[in-house]
């Protein structure tokens, strides 16, 4: 099925990369050059249309990180991808994190805000990790209440990212897609669809990656993530680790193309957080993603044309 409804997304339906301090200068030069002579606020002539940051890296009151972020915010749309709200924690969302995120949103007015379908410990034991949530009605009720709380505080809707999973819960009552779809229906949030996480979870838990891709309603997807992962061989089978430390795998590219054929153009991010390479390597990955989007868009137009001719 081709998605007929494009979800409203203030991010342009092109490619972005995660913004890293070591790339500040080169990235700003690129976007500054791209908007010269353009009437657009996005760097439309570049392979990059937007940037993403972890807001937690900008929770300090001032300093060089804010000077750089201000310069980018004046030129390109930003997406704030939070890693610290801990929406699934029993104690509820981390209120300190939420207040700091709200202040940062007021300061920079990002085009998009997102966090994860996960939890990160408790107030007295904050884990710098994204732990899995069981797909039960109990967890869904709790998670939806927390998403609603965050959206009320921020005065905007947010996206929730599907997790990379290493563990499956014995008591799961629904699929990941059903959990996310119901969450969206209840709260009005959207999905940040991480295709690498699909490959990681499917491999680690013995699930069908194609089926997981096809199960997601593309009209709910406001942003796509692509990243690399590490792999460990074990007697009990391969274990993929979502470390964002290498190029996007061939399988993830294939899964992305499968999704793009159905969903059309979406804002797509190249994530690379460990062993960060030269900026050009990120641009090369973004160019591959852009080519896939163009190919998928052409194919969709071709199919639509044929359907129109038959009608």
């Amino acid at each position, binding site marked *: 099925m081709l998605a007929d409804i494009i979800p409203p997304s203030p991010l342009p339906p092109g490619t972005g990369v995660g913004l890293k301090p070591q790339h500040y200068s080169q990235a700003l030069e690129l976007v500054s050059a791209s908007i010269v002579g353009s009437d657009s606020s996005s760097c439309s002539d570049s392979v990059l249309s937007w940037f993403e940051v972890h807001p*937690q*890296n900008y*929770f*300090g*009151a*001032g*300093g*060089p*990180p*804010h*000077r750089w972020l201000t310069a980018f915010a004046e030129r390109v749309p930003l997406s704030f991808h939070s890693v*610290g709200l801990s929406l699934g*924690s*029993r104690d509820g969302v981390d209120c300190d*994190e939420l207040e700091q995120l709200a202040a940062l949103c007021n300061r920079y007015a990002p085009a998009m805000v997102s966090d994860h379908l996960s*939890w990160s*410990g*408790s*107030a*007295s*034991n*904050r*884990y*710098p*990790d994204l*732990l899995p*949530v*069981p797909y*039960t009605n*109990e*967890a869904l009720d*709790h998670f939806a209440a927390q998403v609603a709380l965050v959206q009320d505080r921020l005065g905007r809707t947010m996206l929730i990212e599907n997790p990379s*999973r*290493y*563990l*499956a*819960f*014995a*008591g*799961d009552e629904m699929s990941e897609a059903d959990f996310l779809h119901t969450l969206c229906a209840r709260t009005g949030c959207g999905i940040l669809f991480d295709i690498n996480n699909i490959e990681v979870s499917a491999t*680690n*838990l013995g699930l069908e990656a194609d089926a997981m891709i096809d199960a997601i309603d593309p009209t709910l997807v406001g942003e796509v993530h692509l990243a690399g992962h590490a792999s460990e061989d*074990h*007697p*009990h*089978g391969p*274990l993929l*680790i979502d470390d964002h430390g290498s190029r996007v795998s061939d399988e993830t590219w294939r899964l992305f193309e499968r999704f793009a054929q159905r969903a059309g153009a979406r804002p797509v991010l190249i994530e690379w957080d460990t062993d960060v390479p030269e900026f050009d390597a990120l641009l090369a990955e973004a160019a591959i993603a852009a080519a896939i989007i163009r190919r998928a868009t052409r194919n969709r137009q071709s199919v639509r044309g044929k359907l129109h001719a038959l009608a």
Partner: protein
Amino acid sequence: MRWLDSGQSAMMAALDHGPAHMPAELFAGSPERVLAGMKVHANTISHARLVALEETFPRTREHIGHDRFNQHSRLFVVQPRVTALPLAQIGTGFDRFLIDEGETAAAADLARFEWLWLTAYHAAEAEPLALDVLTGLTPDELLEHTIMRHPAAYASQFDPLVHQLIGAEVAGLDAAEAIVIARPQAQVLVSPASALMAQLLAATKNPVTISNLLNQPGESMDNNEAAVAAIMQALVALINAGAIAQV
């Protein structure tokens, strides 16, 4: 097992205390596979905390050696107070912990210097006071002029080792009584300072008139002409170091 009532607690117990605390009925799949999955999470948590400490204290790590630094770090990051901190704040109190672990005062002071440097790097912005503002004032106006420590400025006396190590990059630091760390604009500046400068900066934590600054209680100097000149000279040096803010 209900997730919110007991599932999360059981998972946290396994992450904090090891496989013996693994909740057998919580996860699907073979025990080997569940153990491998839990290890990924435990390693991610530990690795992120240790890397955050390494990146916060690179000079301290180099000074005491990677193995000892790693040994201290592994103990530090599981302290109850530390596990409650976000990664950006995880270095809080690491200098005192090093002392408790038997490291030298010099190593701990190097950690304290690095923590202050990072704190200045991320501190709030403020317009630094320019000397020109003061030179245009009449004597009476000068005395009533209010000043304040820049929010990104610190001054302290440090162990000689800190002066020696940082002094390799900053002229005059090796022989100085104290060190000023300030970020008046984009860059963190490190400058040599006198003990009086450190004392004055501490006295300007809250807004204070120059008149009151000249009459600080506890001054070793009487309020004579020489003392006033010494204080004004120290104040000018702090202003030049970018350590005083406009009020």
